[in-house]
C-alpha cells in the first residue's frame, strides 16, 4: 500500500513539475518531442482552422439568407459602386470552407490533437514510437495549412474541395497552391498513422494484450490503417492534377484525350476512406465517454473493436457511391450500392452497444456525457440519412442536392465535432489539472446541439425538394429553409465559441483537480494531473480499463485510485461521485 505522499505524488494534482511547466520558453514548445505538448500545439492549430473555416461558413450562410446574391456583392457596404462578382466570391467561400475544414480540421482533429495527447498514456507508454516524426507531422500540418492560406491570397480557390476536373484544370485560381497544401497535409496524416500503428503494436504496457486495450485505441489503430493505405493515393492524385494543370499530361483533361471521371475515381478512392478517418476516432471517444460517465463496462467490446477494423477495410470498397450519376456503368453502380449497405450495419450496431452500456449504469449528466448523448442523436440521423443515399434510385434524385450536404454535416459535425468537443471536456482535467464550469459547458453543448439541428435539418427537406448544392442564388421557394438554416448557423457558432471559452478559462482559473476525477479505468488516469513529463512516475499497473469496481474513491485526494494504491485508513468506497 502506498503512503499518502506517494499517492499524492502519483495521483494528485501536480502543481509543480508537470509537463506544462517542466521547461519554459517558446523553443521548448516549438522543438518539443513530448507528445502531450505536440498534442496541445495541434489543438491550437486545428482550433484556428476550425474558426477560420467556420467564419467562411457563416459568410456563406449569411449570403444564402437572401436568395439573390446581394450579400457577397457587397452592395450593402459599398452601395451601387460595388461590382464584386458575388458568385465568384461565394464559390471561393464554399471551397475554402470545405478544404480547410476537411484537410486542416476534421481529419487531424481527433487523431492528431486528442490522439497525440491520450494514446501513449492510455497504452502506458512514455511517448509515441517516433517522437521526432510526430513533431515533423505537426510541422507538415502547419506548412500544409500555410499553403492553403497562400492559395487564399493568390487567387483563392473556387473548384470545390473536391477539385473535379476539367474545371480545376482550367480555372485561374490558386489550385496549385491549394493542392500542394492538401498534399503536404496528407503526409502529416500518413506519418501520424505510421506513428500510432507502430506505437500500439510495440509499446503497450506489460500485460495489456490487444483485448485489454481501451476502445479509443482500437479506433485510433483502425484509423491509422486507413491513413496509411488511403492517403498516399490522394497524394498521387493531387500530383497528377498538378501535372495536368502545369504540364498538360492528358490524363484528366478531355482536350488531350483524358478522362475527367477518372479523376473522380482516384479522388474518392482516398476521400471515402477519409471519412472513416474522421468518424472512427470519434466513435472511439464516445465509447470512452459513455462507459466512464455511466461507470459501466462497455457492452459488446469485441464487436466494437472488430467493427472498427471492419469499417476501415470495407470503407475501401465503396468509393463509387459518390459517383452514381457520373456516367459509370450500371453494373458498377449496383456493386457499390450493395457494398455500401454492408458498411452501414457495424455503425448501427455500435449505437445499440452504447445504449446497452447505459442500461443499469450510473449516468452523470456532465458536459462530456451531454456531448456523447448528443452524438448518438445527431450521428443517428446522419447515419440513417446515409441509407437514402446508398439506395440507388433515391440517390439519383438526391445526389448533389442539399440532402447530401445535410447528411455529411450531420455525420461530420454532429459526429466528429461533437465527439471532439466531448473528448476535450473529458480529458481536459487530465491534461490541465483544472475543472471547467460544467454548467456553462452544458449550455455550450446545448447551443451546439440546437443550433446544429436548426441549421441542417431544413436542408434535408430542401434537398428532397430539389435544391442543388453549391448554388450562390436560388429560386424563392427555398428561401424559408435557407433562412432557418442561417439562424441556426449563428447559434451553432456561438455554442462552439462558448465551449472554447469555457475550456480556455479553466486552464488558468479552473478548480484544481487530481489525477482521476471521473473514476475512469484506462491507464492515462493512473497519473497525476497534469501528468509529468514522462507521463508516469511509476510503471502503470495494467488492469481492465472497463472494470470500474477496481477503483475506489479517495476522499483525501478527491480522486479515484486503483485498489492497490488505496489509503488503508479509509473504507473503500465504490459509489461514483458526482462532479
Amino acid at each position, binding site marked *: 500500500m502506498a503512503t499518502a505522499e506517494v499517492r499524492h505524488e502519483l495521483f494528485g494534482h501536480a502543481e509543480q513539475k508537470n509537463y506544462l511547466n517542466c521547461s519554459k520558453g517558446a523553443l521548448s514548445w516549438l522543438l518539443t518531442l513530448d507528445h502531450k505538448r505536440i498534442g496541445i500545439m495541434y489543438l491550437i492549430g486545428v482550433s484556428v482552422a476550425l474558426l477560420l473555416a467556420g467564419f467562411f461558413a457563416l459568410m456563406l450562410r449569411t449570403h444564402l439568407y437572401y436568395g439573390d446574391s446581394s450579400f457577397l456583392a457587397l452592395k450593402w457596404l459599398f452601395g451601387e459602386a460595388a461590382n464584386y462578382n458575388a458568385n465568384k466570391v461565394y464559390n471561393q467561400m464554399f471551397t475554402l470552407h470545405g478544404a480547410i475544414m476537411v484537410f486542416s480540421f476534421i481529419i487531424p482533429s481527433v487523431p492528431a490533437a486528442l490522439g497525440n495527447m491520450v494514446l501513449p498514456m492510455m497504452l502506458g507508454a512514455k511517448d509515441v514510437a517516433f517522437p521526432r516524426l510526430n513533431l515533423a507531422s505537426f510541422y507538415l500540418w502547419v506548412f500544409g495549412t500555410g499553403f492553403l492560406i497562400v492559395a487564399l491570397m493568390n487567387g483563392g480557390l473556387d473548384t470545390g474541395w473536391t477539385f473535379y476536373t476539367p474545371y480545376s484544370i482550367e480555372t485561374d485560381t490558386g489550385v496549385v497552391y491549394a493542392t500542394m497544401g492538401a498534399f503536404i497535409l496528407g503526409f502529416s496524416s500518413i506519418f501520424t498513422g505510421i506513428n500510432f500503428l507502430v506505437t500500439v503494436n*510495440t509499446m503497450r504496457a506489460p500485460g495489456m494484450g490487444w483485448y485489454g486495450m481501451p476502445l479509443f485505441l482500437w479506433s485510433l489503430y483502425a484509423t491509422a490503417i486507413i491513413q496509411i493505405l488511403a492517403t498516399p493515393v490522394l497524394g498521387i492524385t493531387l500530383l497528377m492534377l498538378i501535372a495536368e494543370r502545369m504540364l498538360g499530361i492528358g490524363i484528366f483533361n478531355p482536350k488531350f484525350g483524358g478522362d475527367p471521371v477518372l479523376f473522380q475515381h482516384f479522388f474518392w478512392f482516398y476521400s471515402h476512406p477519409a471519412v472513416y478517418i474522421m468518424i472512427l476516432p470519434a466513435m472511439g471517444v464516445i465509447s470512452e465517454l459513455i462507459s466512464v460517465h455511466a461507470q459501466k463496462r462497455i457492452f459488446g467490446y469485441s464487436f466494437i473493436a472488430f467493427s472498427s477494423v471492419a469499417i476501415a477495410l470495407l470503407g475501401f470498397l465503396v468509393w463509387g457511391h459518390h459517383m452514381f450519376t457520373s456516367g459509370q456503368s450500371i453494373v458498377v453502380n449496383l456493386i457499390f450500392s450493395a457494398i455500401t449497405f454492408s458498411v452501414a450495419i457495424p455503425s448501427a450496431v455500435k449505437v445499440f452497444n452504447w445504449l446497452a452500456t447505459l442500461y443499469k449504469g450510473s449516468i452523470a449528466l456532465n458536459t462530456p456525457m451531454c456531448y456523447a448523448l448528443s452524438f448518438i442523436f445527431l450521428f443517428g440521423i446522419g447515419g440513417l440519412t446515409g441509407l437514402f443515399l446508398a439506395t440507388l434510385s433515391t440517390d439519383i434524385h438526391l445526389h448533389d442536392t442539399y440532402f447530401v450536404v445535410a447528411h455529411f454535416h450531420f455525420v461530420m459535425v454532429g459526429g466528429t465535432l461533437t465527439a471532439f468537443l466531448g473528448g476535450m471536456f473529458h480529458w481536459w482535467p487530465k491534461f490541465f489539472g483544472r475543472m471547467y464550469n460544467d454548467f456553462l459547458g452544458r449550455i455550450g453543448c446545448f447551443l451546439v446541439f440546437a443550433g446544429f439541428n436548426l441549421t441542417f435539418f431544413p436542408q434535408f427537406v430542401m434537398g428532397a425538394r430539389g435544391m442543388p448544392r453549391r448554388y450562390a442564388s436560388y429560386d424563392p421557394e427555398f428561401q424559408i429553409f435557407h433562412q432557418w438554416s442561417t439562424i441556426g448557423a449563428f447559434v451553432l457558432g456561438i455554442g462552439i465559441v462558448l465551449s472554447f471559452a469555457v475550456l480556455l478559462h479553466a486552464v488558468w482559473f479552473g478548480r484544481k483537480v487530481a489525477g482521476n476525477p471521473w473514476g475512469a479505468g484506462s491507464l492515462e488516469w493512473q497519473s497525476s494531473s497534469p501528468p509529468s513529463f*514522462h507521463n508516469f512516475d511509476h510503471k502503470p499497473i495494467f488492469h481492465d480499463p472497463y472494470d470500474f469496481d477496481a477503483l475506489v474513491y479517495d476522499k483525501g485526494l478527491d480522486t479515484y485510485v486503483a485498489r492497490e494504491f488505496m489509503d488503508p485508513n479509509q473504507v473503500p468506497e465504490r459509489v461514483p461521485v458526482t462532479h
Partner: protein
Amino acid sequence: MAVADTHHHDHHDHGEFIAHHFDNAEQQFDSGKLGIWVFLVTEVLFFSGLFVAYILWRYHHPEIFQQAHVFLDKVLGGINTVVLLFSSLTMALAVRCSQMSNNRGTAFYTLITMVCAAIFLGVKAIEYSHKWDQGILVRSMWAYTLDHQEAKLGIAQQLGVSDWLIWLSIVPAILLGVFIVASVTATLMAKPIWSKFYAGLAITVGGYFLGALGGQIYMKNYEAREAAGTAQVSPLVLHADDKAAASAQQHDHTGEHAGEHGHAGEHHDSHHPDPKSLDRDVGVFFSIYYCMTGLHAFHILGGIAFLSWIYFRSLKGHWRSDYFGPVEYVGLYWHLVDLIWIYLFPMLYLID
C-alpha cells in the same frame, strides 16, 4: 519528405543508443522495423496511382503502347537496371557490415551504393536530354521533330552534347565544386570525418558525370547506327512514312537535313516520321513515362540523401552489432526503390 526512422543515440550518455521513451533496445528495433515497413507500404500505394493510370491507358490505347517503347533505348535502360541491382547488392553488404560492427565496411559499401544511384541519374539525364531535343514530351507539349535541336550553349557545342544536358548538370556541377572545397577545407581544419564525408559526396556526384559520360558515348554510337539505317524504328514511324510518301512535303526535309549537324550523324529520312502527321497521342505514353520515371528519380534523390546520412554515421563509428537499425531501414527503402525500377523497366521499355 521526412524520414521514417528511429533515433540515434544521445551523445551525452556514454554512447547509450536507446531513446528515452523505449524500454529496451529490442522494443526500439522492433518499432523501427515495423515503422519502415509500414512506410514502404505507403510508398507502394503512392506509386500505385501511376500504375493504375498506366494500366488504363494501355488498355485504351494499345496501338500506341505496343509501339511507343521503341522511342526508348533498351540498352540504356538495361544499364540502369544492372546498376541499380548492383547497388542493392552493395546496400545489402553495407547492412551486413553494420551488423558485424564493421563501420569502415559499412561506409565503403554505402558509398558505392550512392555512386551507383548517381550513375543511374546520369544515364537518366542523357535519356531525358536526348528526348527533349527531339520534342518527345508529354501529351500537350508533344512536338516531335525529325531532327535533334541544335545546341546553342557554347559549352554544349564544345562538348558535343545537348543544351538540356548542360541545364540538368548545372546543379551537380555546383555541388561537385562545393563538396570538393568543403572536403579540402575540412582536411585543413583537421576534421577527418567531415573531410571524408564531403569527399564521399563529391565522389557520388562524380558518379553522375560518369553515368552521363557513359550514356553520351553510347548515344553517339546509336546515332551512327541510326544514320546507317540499322537502328530499330517504331512502326508508328513507318506508318507516318506511308502518309509521307503520299504527300510531297517530306522530300523538302531531306535536302534541309543533309547538311545539319544537330548531333553527330545524319538522319536517314525514310526512318523518321513526318512530325505533322504522327498522332499526338504518342504523347500519352510519354506523359506516363515522364511521370513514373520522374517520380522514381525523385525517390532516388531522396535515397541518396538518406544514404549520405548513413555514410556519415558510419564514418562516426555509430554501428554496433546491437545497434544497426537505421542502416537496415534505409536498406529496405533502397531495395523498394530498386524494386519499383524492376517494374518500370519492363513496363515501359520492354513489353510490346
